[in-house]
C-alpha cells in the first residue's frame, strides 16, 4: 500500500494540485506562467482543445465552444453540444480534461496514480459520483473525495499548535472569485463533520470588480464627461467602449487588490482621447461591497439560527477564497458576529493544502511491478498476461513514427515545423509547448502530415517539447521530441568576426587600461551593442584634455597596445558645450555592419551632446599624449622583465627583451618631441613600432614564460593565504580585496598574455605587502630595523627622534594601533621610502 499524498481542489473557477511530502505540502505551479491555479475552463477551438487560462479568452465571443462553471452541472444528465466538434460533451468529460491538465503541473514527472479531490459540502451523491468518475477517467487508479470545508479546516488546524483536544463548532467562510459558500463545522468525539451549509453560486470577487465600474467609474464619467449612453456602450457586446470595458475590468481588479493594502488608489484610462484620472478610496470601495457582504453575513446567521446556535457557541471563522483578503470582509465578519476571524493561512490555497494533508493518511494499492521469471519466456508470458488484464494500468506505448523538420537557426520571429507521422497516428493528439511557458498549442488532432508555426523569442535559444497523446489523452512518453531553435544570434549566411572587437577602458587602480569586449570573436555580423559607462576624469570645457574612444580588434586578454586599433574617436574639451564632470554617464552605441563598417554614436549625458562617426576599417587616428603614456608603460614593463630575467639568470630572454627595448628607445626622443598638431606620419610610424614590439614582447619566451608566470602568480597567492590569517589590523578589508582578486583568477590563468599574468601577480604581491604592514610582528621587526639605521638614512633624523620615542611608549603600553601609525610616519621620513608613489597623472582614455 502506498500513501496517496496528492490533493486536488477542483474548483468552479480555478483548480489546484498539491502534494504532501516529508511533513510539508507543495503547491504545484502551472508550467506556463507559474501560477498556482488553473482556470477551470475548456475551449474546443477550431482544430485544437485548450484547457485553462487561455481557454477563457473566447468565453464571451464563442460560448458554444467554450465551457466554464461546469462544476455546477456535475451529476446532471446535461450535455453540451460543441459546434466545432459536432458532438456532445458532458460535465464529467470537461472535468476530466481539467484534472488531466492539473497532472501536467507535477514537474517532478512522477505519475499521479491516486488523488484526493475536494467537492463542495452541497454536493449530493450523484454529484460526488460524477466527480469520482472524472478522476478515474483522468487516469487515477484511486480517487477519494473530501468536502471542501473539511479540507480547509485541516489546512488551518495543521498550521496551529495544540490541536489535539479540539472540540466544538466553527464556520468556514468561503468567498471565491465567483461563488460563496458557508459551512458550519463540528468536531465531536474526535470526528470532524459538516453540520450545515449554505451558499450562492453567483457571488464573488468578479462581482466586486464589476461593482467598482458600475458604482464608481460610470457615475464619475457620466458626471464629468457627459457622454450619453456611456454605461450602455460600455456593457454592450460590440459596443463603442467594449475595449475600455475589458481594460476597466482589469484595472478595477488591480485597484481592489491595492485597496486591501492602502487607503487610496488611482485608476487612469483614456476616454475619447482624453485622460481620465480617478481617485478611489477604500471607503468608496466598501460602499460598493456593502450589500453583497451583508448578504453573506445574513446567510451565516441563517445557519446559526437553523441550528439553534448563538455566535458565542462558535469558536472561530476560517477564511477561504481570494475575496477574503479584502479587509472590509474581515472587519464586517468580526463586527457583526463577534466571532474570532482566523486568516492565518493563504485563503486561495487552503482547500488544496487540506486535501494533501488528508491524502497523506489515505492509501491505495499501487500498480504491481512485473516480477522477473525464471527465464525470458517466463517474463514475456507475464508481460502479455498483464497486457491482457484490463484492470492494470500501463503507460501508453506506441510505435508511432514521427519525422520532424525545421530550421535550427532562424532570423524570423517564427519558424515553421513540419511533422510527418507514420504508423498508428490515427486518433492521437499532439501538443507543443515552449519550455519558458510562452507558447502552447493545446491538444491538436494528429494528421499524417501537419505544420505548426513556432513563435521565437529574439536573440536566444527557443526550446519546444512535442508531446503525443493517445486516444484517452494519456501521454506517450516514448514519443517525446525536443525541438531547439536559435533565433537571431547565428545566421549561416552572415560572416563571423575573426577576432574580438573591444573597447579600451581605464583601469585606474592599476594606472593602466584594459580591454572590454564589445563583440565576441565568431559573432555573426551585423552586430549592435550599447555600452553604458562613466567618465573617469573631469574635462573642462575648452581644455586640451580629451576622452578617447579606442576600438580595437584582437585578443580581449591582450594589452591594448598589442591589438589593432580599428576606430578612435577623440572628444576634447574644445568640443564640449560645458564641463564634463568625472562620474557622469557616457553612452556608446557601436554597430558593425555586414561589410564590417563600424559606426559609433557617443552620447554625453551631462552635456546632452551626441557625436556620430562612421569608419571604414582603414582610417587611423592616433592621440600623441596617449601614445606617450603607452610608450612609457611598455618601456617600464620591458625594463622590469629584463631585471627579472637577469635575476633568474635567464640570459636568452634577457637579451631578446633588451633588443625590444633598444628598438623602442630609438623612437623615444622623436615621440616626446611630437606635438598634438603634428601633421607628419611620425606618430603613425611610432604607433606601428609600439604595436609590433608589444606583440613580440608578449610572445617572448612562449609557453615556458607563461608557465613560469603562472607559477609566480600561484606562489604569490599561496603567500597571501598563509599570511592573511595572521594580519592584526584591517583583516576584513584585506580579505575582501583578496576575494576581489580571486574573482578574475580564471581569466588570468587561462590567459596566454604575459602582461596579464604579470599584472595579476603584481596585484597579489602588492596585497601581500599590505598584509605584512598590517601584521604586528612584521611591523615590530621592521621598526627594530629602522632603529638601527644611520641618521643619514633619514630625510630628517631630528624629526624622526620624537616619533621613535612615541612609538616605543605606544608599544610598551600595548597601544598597537597608535604604534603602527608611528611606524608608518617613520617610513615617510626614510630616504628610500618603501612605498610606491602613485602616479596621479595617469591620463588613460577617460572612460571608466
Amino acid at each position, binding site marked *: 500500500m502506498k500513501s496517496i499524498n496528492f490533493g486536488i481542489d477542483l474548483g468552479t473557477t480555478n483548480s489546484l494540485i498539491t502534494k504532501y511530502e516529508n511533513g510539508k505540502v507543495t503547491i504545484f505551479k502551472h508550467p506556463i506562467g507559474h501560477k498556482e491555479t488553473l482556470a477551470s475552463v475548456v475551449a474546443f477551438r477550431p482544430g485544437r482543445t485548450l484547457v485553462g487560462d487561455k481557454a*477563457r479568452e473566447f468565453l464571451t465571443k*464563442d460560448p458554444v465552444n467554450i465551457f466554464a462553471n461546469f462544476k455546477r452541472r456535475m451529476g446532471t444528465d446535461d450535455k453540451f453540444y460543441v459546434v466545432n466538434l459536432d458532438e456532445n460533451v458532458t460535465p464529467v468529460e470537461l472535468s476530466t480534461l481539467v484534472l488531466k491538465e492539473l497532472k501536467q503541473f507535477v514537474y517532478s514527472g512522477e505519475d499521479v496514480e491516486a488523488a484526493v479531490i475536494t467537492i463542495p459540502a452541497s454536493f449530493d451523491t450523484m454529484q460526488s459520483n460524477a466527480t469520482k468518475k472524472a478522476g478515474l477517467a483522468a487516469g487515477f487508479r484511486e480517487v477519494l473525495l473530501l468536502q471542501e470545508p473539511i479540507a480547509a479546516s485541516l489546512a488551518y488546524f495543521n498550521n496551529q499548535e495544540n490541536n489535539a483536544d479540539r472540540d466544538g463548532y466553527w464556520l468556514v467562510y468561503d468567498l471565491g472569485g465567483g461563488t460563496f459558500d458557508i459551512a458550519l463545522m463540528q468536531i465531536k468525539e474526535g470526528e470532524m463533520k459538516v453540520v450545515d451549509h449554505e451558499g450562492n453560486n453567483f457571488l464573488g470577487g468578479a462581482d466586486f470588480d464589476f461593482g467598482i465600474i458600475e458604482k464608481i467609474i460610470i457615475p464619475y464619467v457620466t458626471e464629468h464627461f457627459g457622454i450619453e449612453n456611456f454605461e450602455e456602450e460600455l456593457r454592450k457586446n460590440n459596443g463603442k467602449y467594449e475595449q475600455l470595458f475589458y481594460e476597466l475590468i482589469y484595472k478595477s481588479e488591480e485597484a481592489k487588490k491595492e485597496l486591501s493594502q492602502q487607503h487610496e488608489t488611482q485608476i487612469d484610462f483614456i476616454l475619447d482621447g482624453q485622460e481620465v484620472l480617478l481617485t478611489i478610496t477604500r471607503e468608496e470601495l466598501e460602499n460598493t461591497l456593502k450589500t453583497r457582504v451583508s448578504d453573506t453575513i445574513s446567510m451565516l446567521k441563517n445557519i446559526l439560527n437553523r441550528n439553534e446556535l448563538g455566535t458565542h457557541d462558535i469558536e472561530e471563522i476560517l477564511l477561504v477564497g481570494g475575496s477574503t483578503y479584502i479587509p472590509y470582509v474581515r472587519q464586517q465578519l468580526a463586527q457583526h458576529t463577534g466571532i474570532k476571524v482566523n486568516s492565518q493561512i493563504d485563503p486561495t490555497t487552503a482547500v488544496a493544502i487540506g486535501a494533501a494533508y488528508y491524502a497523506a493518511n489515505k492509501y491505495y494499492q499501487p500498480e504491481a511491478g512485473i516480477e522477473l521469471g525464471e527465464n525470458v519466456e517466463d517474463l514475456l508470458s507475464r508481460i502479455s498476461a498483464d497486457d491482457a488484464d484490463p484492470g492494470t494500468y500501463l503507460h501508453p506505448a506506441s510505435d508511432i513514427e514521427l519525422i520532424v523538420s525545421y530550421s535550427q537557426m532562424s532570423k524570423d520571429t517564427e519558424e515553421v515545423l513540419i511533422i510527418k507521422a507514420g504508423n498508428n497516428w490515427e486518433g492521437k493528439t499532439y501538443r507543443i509547448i515552449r519550455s519558458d511557458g510562452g507558447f502552447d498549442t493545446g491538444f491538436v488532432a494528429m494528421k499524417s502530415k501537419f505544420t505548426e508555426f513556432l513563435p521565437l523569442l529574439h536573440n536566444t535559444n527557443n526550446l519546444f517539447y512535442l508531446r503525443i497523446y493517445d486516444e484517452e489523452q494519456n501521454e506517450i512518453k516514448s514519443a517525446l521530441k525536443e525541438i531547439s531553435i536559435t533565433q537571431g544570434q547565428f545566421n549561416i549566411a552572415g560572416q563571423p568576426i575573426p577576432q574580438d572587437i573591444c573597447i579600451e577602458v581605464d583601469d585606474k587602480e592599476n594606472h593602466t587600461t584594459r580591454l572590454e569586449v564589445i563583440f565576441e570573436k565568431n559573432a555573426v555580423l551585423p552586430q549592435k551593442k550599447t555600452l553604458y559607462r562613466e567618465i573617469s576624469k573631469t574635462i573642462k570645457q575648452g581644455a586640451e584634455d580629451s576622452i578617447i574612444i579606442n576600438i580595437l580588434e584582437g585578443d580581449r586578454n591582450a594589452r591594448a597596445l598589442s591589438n589593432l586599433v580599428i576606430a578612435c574617436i577623440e572628444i576634447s574639451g574644445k568640443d564640449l558645450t560645458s564641463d564634463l564632470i568625472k562620474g557622469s554617464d557616457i553612452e556608446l552605441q557601436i554597430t558593425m555592419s555586414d561589410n564590417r563598417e563600424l559606426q559609433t554614436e557617443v552620447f554625453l549625458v551631462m552635456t546632452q551632446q551626441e557625436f556620430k562617426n562612421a569608419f571604414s576599417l582603414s582610417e587611423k587616428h592616433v592621440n600623441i599624449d596617449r601614445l606617450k603614456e603607452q610608450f612609457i608603460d611598455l618601456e617600464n614593463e620591458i625594463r622590469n622583465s629584463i631585471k627579472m630575467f637577469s635575476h633568474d639568470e635567464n640570459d636568452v630572454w634577457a637579451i631578446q627583451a633588451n633588443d625590444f627595448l633598444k628598438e623602442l628607445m630609438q623612437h623615444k626622443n622623436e615621440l616626446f618631441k611630437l606635438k598634438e598638431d603634428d601633421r607628419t606620419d611620425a606618430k603613425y610610424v611610432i604607433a606601428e613600432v609600439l604595436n609590433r614590439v608589444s606583440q613580440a614582447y608578449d610572445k617572448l619566451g612562449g609557453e615556458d614564460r607563461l608557465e613560469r608566470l603562472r607559477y609566480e602568480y600561484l606562489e604569490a597567492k599561496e603567500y597571501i593565504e598563509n599570511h592573511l590569517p595572521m594580519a592584526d589590523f584591517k583583516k576584513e578589508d584585506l580579505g575582501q580585496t583578496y576575494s576581489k582578486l580571486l574573482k578574475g583568477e580564471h581569466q588570468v590563468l587561462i590567459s596566454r598574455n604575459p602582461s596579464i599574468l604579470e599584472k595579476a601577480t603584481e596585484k597579489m604581491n602588492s596585497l601581500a605587502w599590505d598584509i605584512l604592514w598590517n601584521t604586528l610582528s612584521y611591523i615590530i621587526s621592521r621598526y627594530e630595523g629602522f632603529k638601527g639605521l644611520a641618521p643619514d638614512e633619514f630625510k630628517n633624523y631630528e624629526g624622526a627622534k620624537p616619533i621613535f620615542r612615541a612609538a616605543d611608549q605606544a608599544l610598551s603600553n600595548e597601544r598597537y594601533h597608535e604604534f603602527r601609525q608611528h611606524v608608518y610616519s617613520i617610513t615617510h621620513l626614510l630616504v628610500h621610502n618603501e612605498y610606491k608613489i602613485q602616479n596621479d597623472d595617469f591620463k588613460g582614455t577617460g572612460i571608466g
Partner: protein
Amino acid sequence: MDANIALINQFFEMEQKMVAEQLADKFDRNLRRIQHIFEASGLIIVNPAGEAYSESRTDYEASIVGSPGPNLKITKVIKPIIYQNDSQGRQLLQKGIVIAEQV
C-alpha cells in the same frame, strides 16, 4: 522579484503614455537605458502590440473586443510580457494583459 515586476509595469505604463503624448522621442535615450538595465539583470520585456493574435501564445491573456474574425490583432497592451533569464534557463515571469481586435 515582485518589486522588479511592479517597476517594469510602471515603466511600461509611462512609456505608453509618452508614446500617446508623442513625447517618446524626447525620452528615447532614458527609455532605452532603463530597458538595458532590466535586460542586464536578466529581465526580458516583450510588448506584443501590433502582433497577430494567437491562441497558442500563452505568454499573454487577451480580451477579445468586437466580433472575432480571422485577422485578430493585439491593439492594446495593458501589461507587458516579462521573462526572466537565470541559471535555470528562461521562464515566464508575467503574462501580458492585452486586448485583441479584428482589424
